[in-house]
């Protein structure tokens, strides 16, 4: 690894309506270096990458490639400049052959036709450089995700890239495939390529990178050599402490002899979660802590039937219950506020009234409708109770602010009187005031006997609210600790190092 910088991004700022996504962030990449880019969701990693590849335009700052200022207007131009990106989702054509995928758009020609011999032999050569001895004329879909991933890297590398960006390339790979990918990355590094590596798996960062840059809430936390930080320090820097406001909240009181409201025993789904057990008492609040991708959301989705559990048993209120889809879950009195509010929660074009009545109505079925008066009464009740800021209940839900949308979704489920409420990142992306409000509501529901599962990336809010904390790491439950006598340090330690 030389000390020469091939890429320098200086004081990059980007604003989106209402948010400063990046605030004067510096980033540099050396020749022959694997540089990890870290940060929680919304920290600004992808915005930085999109700025580099020209998808988003920067408001201020400079990008220097080999000392020359560049301003790529889109991914294509970035690629021509030598910046190639491999995205998390493989974006190739599964029905074309491996060789065709590598050369599509720039096929070598011979006598007015495509030179297939050249394509196939060069593709084979490229793949064997990655120690892959495969038939490159077979369709891409014939091969595993790992090989598909390699194909997109091969494509990126063959366009004579100076910089390769790998955006979460490992999330769909198994252990061996990850090792294969790492070998390829080290090879490319030896050839002098600069690699930007984005991942949520901490072990992988330490296995392969030379340096790392940490972002938090659009700010640069710092760039460090890999030996400079322990995993523990790294996690602390990533999560940070941005909650200065101290809320006067009372943890839910759970009676020792309370019955179990929800018991999940050894449940697992097809792809993500292998085996997890969760117990939840009546009126209890358990927090799910762990980094993004640690399996928090997948577990919650399984409990709600959004993804189907293929093994294990779920007991609700002592009764063994089949949960095959969300409808079953709703009938079993489970409610779920999903992580991605826009995609999975709010129905933007419908009014607040319709959004709130949805869960109640879908449990009844459409043949037993609530009258508009009943719906309005229900909606008005929750608009008042949750202090949703709106002139009336006929406003489109999509026009509300993030915090108010979250309250509408919460109202949808509160109206359904659930016994178990699962909240996945209910406080993300909303302002401090609304955050406090939602936490207060959550705890109030606990005192009324509702059991709550609370997923959050912000540890202090987990610690503040939870009776018990389940800690997840690499898609497994690694520890379950008492919520009242623990500190952020304890949790960070377990997240970073696994259970002691």
């Amino acid at each position, binding site marked *: 690894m030389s000390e020469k910088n091939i890429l320098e991004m200086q004081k990059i700022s980007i604003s989106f309506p209402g948010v400063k996504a990046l605030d004067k962030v510096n980033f540099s990449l050396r020749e022959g270096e694997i540089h990890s880019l870290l940060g929680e969701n919304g920290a600004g990693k992808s915005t930085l990458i999109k700025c580099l590849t020209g998808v988003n335009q920067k408001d201020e700052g400079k990008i220097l490639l080999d000392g020359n200022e560049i301003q790529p207007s889109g991914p294509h131009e970035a690629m021509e400049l030598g910046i190639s990106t491999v995205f998390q989702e493989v974006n190739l054509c599964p029905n074309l052959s491996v060789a065709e995928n590598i050369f599509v758009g720039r096929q070598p020609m011979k006598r007015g036709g495509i030179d297939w011999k050249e394509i196939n032999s060069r593709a084979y050569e490229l793949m064997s450089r990655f120690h892959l001895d495969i038939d490159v004329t077979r369709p891409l879909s014939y091969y595993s995700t790992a090989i598909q991933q390699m194909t997109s890297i091969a494509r990126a590398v063959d366009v004579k890239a100076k910089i390769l960006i790998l955006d979460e390339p490992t999330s769909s790979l198994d252990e061996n495939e990850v090792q294969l990918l790492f070998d390829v990355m080290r090879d490319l590094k030896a050839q002098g390529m600069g690699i930007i590596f984005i991942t949520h798996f901490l072990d992988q960062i330490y296995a392969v990178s030379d340096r790392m840059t940490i972002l938090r809430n659009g700010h640069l936390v710092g760039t460090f050599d890999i030996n400079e930080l322990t995993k523990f320090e790294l996690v602390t820097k990533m999560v940070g402490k941005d909650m200065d406001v101290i809320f006067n909240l009372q943890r839910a009181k759970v009676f020792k002899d309370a019955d179990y409201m929800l018991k999940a025993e050894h449940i697992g789904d097809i792809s993500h979660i292998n085996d997890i057990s969760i117990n939840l008492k009546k009126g209890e609040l358990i927090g799910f802590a762990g980094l993004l991708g640690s399996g928090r959301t997948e577990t919650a989705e399984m409990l*709600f039937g*959004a993804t189907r559990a293929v093994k294990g048993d779920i007991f609700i209120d002592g009764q063994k219950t089949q949960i095959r*889809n*969300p*409808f079953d*879950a*709703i009938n079993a009195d489970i409610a*779920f506020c*999903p992580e991605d509010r826009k*995609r*999975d*929660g*709010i*129905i*933007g*074009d*419908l009014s607040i009234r*319709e959004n709130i*009545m*949805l*869960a109640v*109505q*879908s*449990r*009844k079925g*459409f*043949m*037993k*409708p*609530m009258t508009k008066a009943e719906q309005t009464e229900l909606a008005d009740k929750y608009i008042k109770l949750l202090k949703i800021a709106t002139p009336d209940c006929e406003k489109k839900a999509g026009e509300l602010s993030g915090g108010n949308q979250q309250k509408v979704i919460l109202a*949808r489920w509160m109206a359904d009187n659930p016994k178990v409420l699962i909240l996945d990142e209910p406080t993300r992306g909303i302002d401090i005031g609304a955050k406090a409000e939602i936490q207060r509501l959550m705890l109030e529901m606990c005192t009324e006997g509702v059991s709550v599962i609370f997923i959050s990336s912000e540890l202090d809010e987990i610690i503040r609210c939870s009776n018990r904390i389940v800690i997840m790491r690499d898609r497994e439950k690694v520890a379950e600790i008492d919520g009242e006598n623990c500190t952020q340090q304890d949790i960070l330690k377990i997240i970073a190092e696994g259970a002691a």
Partner: protein
Amino acid sequence: MAKKNFVLSGLMQSKVTWAVIAELLILMVCFMIRPDFFSISYQPSTGMLYGSLIDIINRSAEITIISMGMTLVIALGGTDLSVGALVAVAGAIALKFLRWDVLTYTTPGDYTVCPYILVLTIPLIVCALMGLFNGFLVAKGGIQPIIATLILMVCGRGVAQILTDGKQFTTGYSPFRIIGQGSFLYLPMPIIITIVVVIAVALFTRKTAFGAFVESVGVNPSASRLSGIKADKIILIVFLITGLLSGIAGLIYSSRIMSNDSNNAGLNFEMDAILAVVIGGTNMSGGKFSLAGTVVGSLIIRTIVTFVYYFGIVAEATMAFKALIIAVVIILQSEPVRKYFAKRSRVREAVLISGGER
């Protein structure tokens, strides 16, 4: 005053308003060219009211009925291309049951071979099942609606041909004639059937939560699923309804000509129905729908056709003329134009309000 203007601004932004305005404009032009355009007279011989307006509503019956179903399909974010073919299927089955074996019953006359109840119900059942087949491909197979319904659009007419051995049957059975040519309460029967269908669909979607569920799935399928809505069931029902309504339209159509016509019955009906829905203000990307708007849309399409017939525009130019007017209507409804007018009326409001305060 200010309040009234707010209402005006809301109306200006609504697509339905523009559809109504367009319809009125076309009618005004008709009235200017032919002052007797709006006259309605009673004809004792048929027991029916007679006039251009009645004729427009009567002739729009098939499209209006089909587009009730199409509105729901489009609200789900899909399209149903098979409706025209189902019209042909319904006609073929009805005529098959009326005549059965043409070799034995060689001349058409005032008779039916199979019981009349079968003549009416079997076509409707078959069309409903074909709709269900569309729905099954979409809901369970995850096939895009436009592709899934393309199957029946292409093979539906083939099925109709096979059922009637490629022949065109005619009939003189008088109870069958009533559907398309009879009258009730001085109005042509198709108008009565249309009114019943429109009211039935409106009640089913708006008096139950079905309409809200359709809109919800159309806007955000993922969030709807996580709210417990069984999207599959909704999709199946919507396509079934559309199939059934196409069957009803098919019976009306074949009763008008007292014959089946596997090649031309319902030809391009899918396009007219989609147009009616879009002109009526329902967005092709799914979501909020307006049945009233669709009715107006269907009337606009028919008014244009009538206009062309009445004013001696050469037959060859009919399609081009129709396209021209529809283009104007759709541009009038487009987002920028509506915003422009809404903004203008808001500016006027602002002036009025500030003027009032002073």
